[in-house]
């Protein structure tokens, strides 16, 4: 047996390596830097790492490689676009994470214990959240460029484990937060099992774990179709769980509500980009030739997801839960882009992911601003009359809601329009009809919040809007500007995406 030197191709891996290096340095900082400086040092380190990785991603755009890390990583145009989107969304989320006072002082302390009290009095902060974020980002970067099932699974776990922890770090209502984290972990583990089970079936079908090998078997059509189908179904469950598609969505409202809002923003926006990125790659390259088998299933799931998300959101009384259901509905819309299975669908999906991700972070950033003496207020009843007390904040939030609803002159409209037209072109008419219908339903609850904020007389126990810090302000303004710009003049970004949006195999 000869020993072959592994081909790693560091250039392709460099963004992830930078992030991982930053994360490790972060861990060391936790150990050695004094408590007083930690938040600032961690913030600078995290932002610097993310920016460096973003620059590096841009530097290697246009490179195409299937051989990196011994052929387990594939880098191409969509890989570049998705990584760039993840990094940009992560940067603006980190602003929120750094700003947020909603993290617990000592995560290990039992809620309500003396230890916790002491820790709060000492002014402790869980700066561990920064390296955790970086680890999660590294997993997210790897997820859409994995090119075999094992790497894909590793990436999935790598992005999930830090998120499980981060979900439990809320300062207030800590039991709810910890419950959410535990639920997320249990269900995540459950769905990971499905994923692995499916991966095993795919291996049984093709005798290979690489995407290229499985694809060759699908094209050749030599294997046992039942194996293939079960494999596709179970791998899909793992992925659909991450994006929150019905009926694998149940975790998301509880986790969105329980997790600190900054983490929710990061999770909702960045995870979705990574998970859909991986889905797009698998369905567009590996399973493309077995389209006959999975399109009907995925269409069914997409339709149920859109309608369920839109319908149930109507009944929500909590703004974070409402946004969670809205995110479920959006997962359904994005599935339409996967089903489209054409170039337009790929471009539209990537555009949608970026536009939706940015608007989501912006919307959650606004949620962090609405507080009373006890902290963030997410009960929608107490948002009444917000438009009169804080017209700017309410207007910006209203704008993000309009973007979610897909009203023209927002990025949401362009995204929805392009994704539905791509799906229509490919013949998925039922999905498009359901999509348009549920968009109409969704508009109902988005606009209801606007009515609540602007046209309803305010409650007595009114909330106040805190004056946003510089960091939060940057996030809100950046998200707002991007959402407007992509709605009014989307052509440059669409052209840019079109230039890169082709998977290599």
């Amino acid at each position, binding site marked *: 047996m000869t020993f072959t030197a592994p081909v790693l191709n560091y250039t392709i891996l460099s963004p992830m390596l930078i992030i991982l290096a930053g994360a490790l340095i972060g861990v060391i900082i936790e150990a050695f830097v004094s408590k007083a400086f930690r938040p600032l040092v961690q913030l600078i380190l995290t932002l610097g790492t993310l920016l460096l990785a973003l620059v590096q991603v841009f530097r290697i755009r246009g490179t195409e490689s299937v051989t990196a890390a011994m052929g387990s990583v594939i880098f191409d145009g969509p890989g570049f676009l998705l990584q760039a989107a993840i990094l940009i969304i992560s940067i603006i989320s980190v602003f929120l994470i750094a700003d947020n006072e909603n993290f617990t002082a000592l995560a290990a302390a039992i809620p309500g214990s003396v230890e916790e009290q002491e820790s709060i009095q000492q002014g402790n902060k869980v700066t561990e959240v920064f390296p955790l974020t970086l680890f999660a980002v590294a997993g997210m970067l790897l997820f859409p460029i994995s090119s075999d099932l094992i790497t894909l699974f590793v990436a999935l776990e790598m992005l999930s484990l830090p998120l499980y922890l981060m979900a439990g770090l809320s300062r207030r209502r800590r039991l709810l937060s910890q419950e959410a984290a535990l639920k997320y972990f249990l269900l995540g583990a459950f769905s990971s099992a499905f994923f692995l089970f499916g991966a095993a079936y795919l291996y049984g079908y093709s005798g290979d774990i690489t995407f290229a090998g499985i694809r060759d078997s699908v094209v050749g059509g030599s294997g046992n179709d039942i194996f293939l189908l*079960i494999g596709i179904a179970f791998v899909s*469950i793992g992925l659909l769980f991450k994006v929150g598609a019905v009926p694998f969505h149940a*975790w998301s409202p*509880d986790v969105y509500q329980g997790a600190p809002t900054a983490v929710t923003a990061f999770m909702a926006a960045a995870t979705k980009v990574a998970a859909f990125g991986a889905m797009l790659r698998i369905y567009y390259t590996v399973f493309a030739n077995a389209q006959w088998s999975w399109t009907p299933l995925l269409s*069914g799931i997409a339709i149920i997801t859109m309608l*369920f998300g839109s*319908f149930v959101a109507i*009944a929500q009384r909590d703004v974070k839960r409402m946004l969670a259901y809205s995110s479920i509905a959006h997962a359904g819309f994005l599935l339409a882009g996967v089903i489209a299975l054409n170039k337009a669908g790929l471009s539209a999906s990537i555009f949608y992911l970026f536009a939706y991700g940015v608007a989501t972070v912006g919307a959650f950033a606004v949620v962090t601003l609405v507080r009373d003496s006890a902290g963030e207020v997410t009960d929608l009843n107490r948002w009444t009359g917000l438009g009169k007390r804080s017209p700017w904040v309410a207007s910006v939030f209203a704008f993000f809601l309009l973007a979610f609803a897909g009203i023209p002159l927002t990025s949401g409209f362009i995204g929805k329009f392009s994704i539905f037209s791509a799906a229509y072109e490919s013949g998925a008419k039922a999905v498009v009809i359901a999509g348009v219908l549920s968009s109409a339903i969704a508009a109902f609850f988005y606009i209801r919040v606007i009515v609540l904020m602007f046209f309803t007389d305010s409650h007595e126990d009114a909330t106040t809007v805190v004056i946003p810090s510089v960091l939060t302000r940057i996030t809100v303004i950046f998200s707002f500007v991007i959402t407007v710009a992509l709605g009014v003049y989307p052509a440059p970004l669409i052209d840019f995406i079109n230039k890169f949006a082709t998977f290599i195999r």
Partner: protein
Amino acid sequence: MQINNGLVYLIALPLAGAAILLLAGRRSDKWGHIFATLMSASSFAVGLLQLSQMLARPAEERAVEQKLFEWISVGSFQVDAGLLLDQLSICFVLLITGVGTLIHIYSVAYMSHDKDRRRFFAYLNLFIAAMLLLVLGNSFLNLYVGWEGVGLASYLLIGFWNQKPAYATASKKAFIMNRVGDMGLSFAIMIAFATLGTVSFAGIKEAAPEASTASLTAIGIMLLVAATGKSAQFPLQAWLGDAMAGPTPVSALIHAATMVTAGVYLITRSNFIFDAAPTAQLLVVIVGAITLLFGAIIGTAKDDIKKALAASTMSQIGYMILGAGLGPVGYAFAIMHLITHGFFKAGMFLGAGSVMHGMDDEVNMRKYGNLRKFMPITFVTFGLGYLAILGVPPFAGFYSKDMIIETAFNAGGIKGILLGSAALLGAGITAFYMTRVMILTFTGAPRWDEKALPHESPILMWLPMAILAIGSVTSGFLLSRGDALVHWLEPLFAEHGEHEELLKPIVVTSLALLMVAIGVAIAFLKYSRSEVSRTAPEDVSLLTKIVRRDLLQDDFNEAIFMRPGQALTSTLVKTDEMVIDGAVRGIGSAALSSAGALRTSQTGFVRSYAALILIGAVALIAAIWVVTQ
């Protein structure tokens, strides 16, 4: 066609004036009126410069164009914002800026006591700019912008004193009736684009010979609708009388000399369409003939001096429309009458303003009388305008109106006789009501209110009147000498053969003068011989009552359009509330209750979530089993 990049200044100067005065606000109160007048005068100077350059070129190269920018570019639909200055538009440019500048000067004095004088001048400049855009646009779409612009300026100026609800209503009425006409213009543009694929004058002229008569007729009729709205022609004439609510200089400029003649311009400019669409052309002459009589008859019963002049304007524009509807032979005469009318009617309006200025804003002629003693200059300038509108030789109206009457008679057959007779009869009625205005205002015993102190107006007011009076005397002679205007405009219109003459020109002239003499005589007998009462007599015939009610034009509109329209809208509102809103609310509450039911699936127990995932997985496998079987 030659390019001339100076055309834009014609519009840019007054537009800048309006913008600066409106943006600077109160800060420009002190100098705003002078600035606006200078802007208008500079635009006139540019117009004169353009004319001198145009005269230096041979007849076929006189038209010049300027492309401003690419305006609309959608697939095959390309429209540039472009200006066209040719023999027709230069006439309008000089009339608009020339008369416009005079009226600016007049307004400096007339509006000197108004604290909003600056705003008034800003609107006047805006009007000048919009009107110039209207006549300089090189396509129907560019024209449309100017068309809407003058509508806006007219609305703003009629309602300038909108603190009086009646005036505000008048401006709204004018605006809404104009909208009806504007719809006609937009339909014409749409039809032109749909059938001919272009909206530029040059493009349509080129495409017209191959186009179907039906589509050209449709365009023509829609253009006529537009013209009736803007030019206060039957059946969209009812707004003009109320528009007299605006300050008198506005009535002189917008509602006598320029804007209301835009319909004549539109028809003349679209001559290639109407020449190829005889049905539309026939409708044009019918509208013209009806309106010239309609306006003249209304004019006989008006006691308000401005409303009498407004009715007269309506009637005179009827003559122009009639002339423009007579085809290539009539276009030049329509334009000639338009220009001479611009002089004498503007002059008379300014005269009316001068009278009002001296009579404490009294407009009721029954409370005038013997003013010639106190306002000699006003009397003379108004009198010259009077002679011009009557068509007494050698005053301006004689040349222009006579030619239209003559051409109408020569239209051939029954049509010619009917049109000619209508025009002739109109001339007689005109003589009657204008003489009535003269007698009631300037002669007889004074019937003033106690506080009235009639006096002559300041020089800034009578100087423009005097200049316009000179125009009323000479313009007709100058324009028709050697058929000057006819030859000038010749390159624009199709050739026309010689018509056989129904009546010799000298016969028509004699008949017209006879009618005028009869009209004047009746007026003298009725108003000069006996005492005029200070209030309108009530014991009059039904016919008089009807005429006093403007031939029931408002009653007609209210009964036929307004009340059914109101009923329709209130029904629609009810339908909206009951059916549409009801359905929406129903769907909303249904969604809410079903959402409430679905929501219960979210129990909060992780075991049930896991079960849900399991059920989902089983369902997927089952579905696969179904698919593969």
